[in-house]
């Protein structure tokens, strides 16, 4: 299965641009996992942790984001956040 292209962007810089297996996005109305070929979605996100699985079954990596917005299209997942830590 193809990997999901994932980009995390803040006003200061492009934090991540990677091909990963899955990202769990903390949407305002609930978390959702994004795999490759996910249907197009636009969602605002809570101030919480993004969970990134680089490989299937691998150890997850978390990045906490504040003031964010997620967009899934045919190119992959793009998360715009005001700050990360």
């Amino acid at each position, binding site marked *: 299965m193809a990997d999901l292209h994932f*980009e995390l*962007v*803040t*006003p*200061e*810089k*492009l934090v991540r641009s990677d091909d990963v297996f899955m990202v769990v996005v903390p*949407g*305002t*109305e609930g978390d959702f996992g994004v795999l490759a070929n996910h*249907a*197009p*979605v*636009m*969602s*605002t996100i809570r101030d919480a942790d993004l969970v990134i699985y680089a490989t299937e079954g691998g150890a997850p990596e978390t990045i906490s984001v504040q*003031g964010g*917005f997620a*967009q899934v*299209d045919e190119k992959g997942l*793009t998360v*715009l956040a*005001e700050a990360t830590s």
Partner: protein
Amino acid sequence: MASLKELKDRIASVKSTQKITKAKKMVAAAKLRRAQMAAEAARPYASQMEKVMTSLASKVSIDENSSKLLAGTGKLETHLLVVATSDRGLCGAFNANIVKEARLKAEKLLGEGHKVLFYMVGRKGIPIIKRFYPGQILKHFDTSTVKAPGFEEAKAIAADLTALIEDGKYDVAHLFYGKFKSALVQEPTVQQIIPVPLQDGAIAESEGAVEYEPDKEEILAELLPRNLTTQIFGALLENNASEQGASMTAMDNATRNAGDLIDNLTIVYNRSRQAAITTELIEIIAGAEAL
């Protein structure tokens, strides 16, 4: 003819000026690199934001409940000119150019019978605007306390602008700043920020059915202030890079001019020294011959 002592002092003074301009040039060059990198790093976010905004805005119908940031106040009477300048001088015509652009726009608007107000960011533009348009400066946002304007400042300015339009203080806002082209070229730029300018016939991408969470209107409501912040942040970064670029160029010229001046003064100094020596010799010889 200036005396030798005066010439010497003059040369020393120009030399010390040259030292200052040289130092300022090097500082600007170092800062320019960083500012340029920051401006470039901010571009992906801004372009993403713009893409999302245009695709969303074209899908939402505008009615009286729409945010004022998107729809405006329905009037075009009072225009707010947000003029972003630097806090420091020694950067050539950089600030003057931005203010000139703002004045052109202001005159045009006044000619059309609109009202014009100013919102100043940075210190250097204020005196000129104050002289030409007394009492029309709505507010001055002070950026001199921070080293380089960042996202926090952009956020504060955006919040200010939002509050002011909610109060009905103005109807349309334009942003003026110096767009960074290269170290030599900075272009004063005008950009309408409120209401959000919508390009007609924006290509509605064939996205099929996009799901919106919570829904389009709410996402848009949250995105609009953020988009404004992003625009201002981008402008501040461009401004910063431009300022350093302009400063570097101006100081480079100043250093070169000081060098030329020193060369000329040195020639004058040597000539008058020689003339003095020659005169002295002639006096001695003439005196000796007279005996």
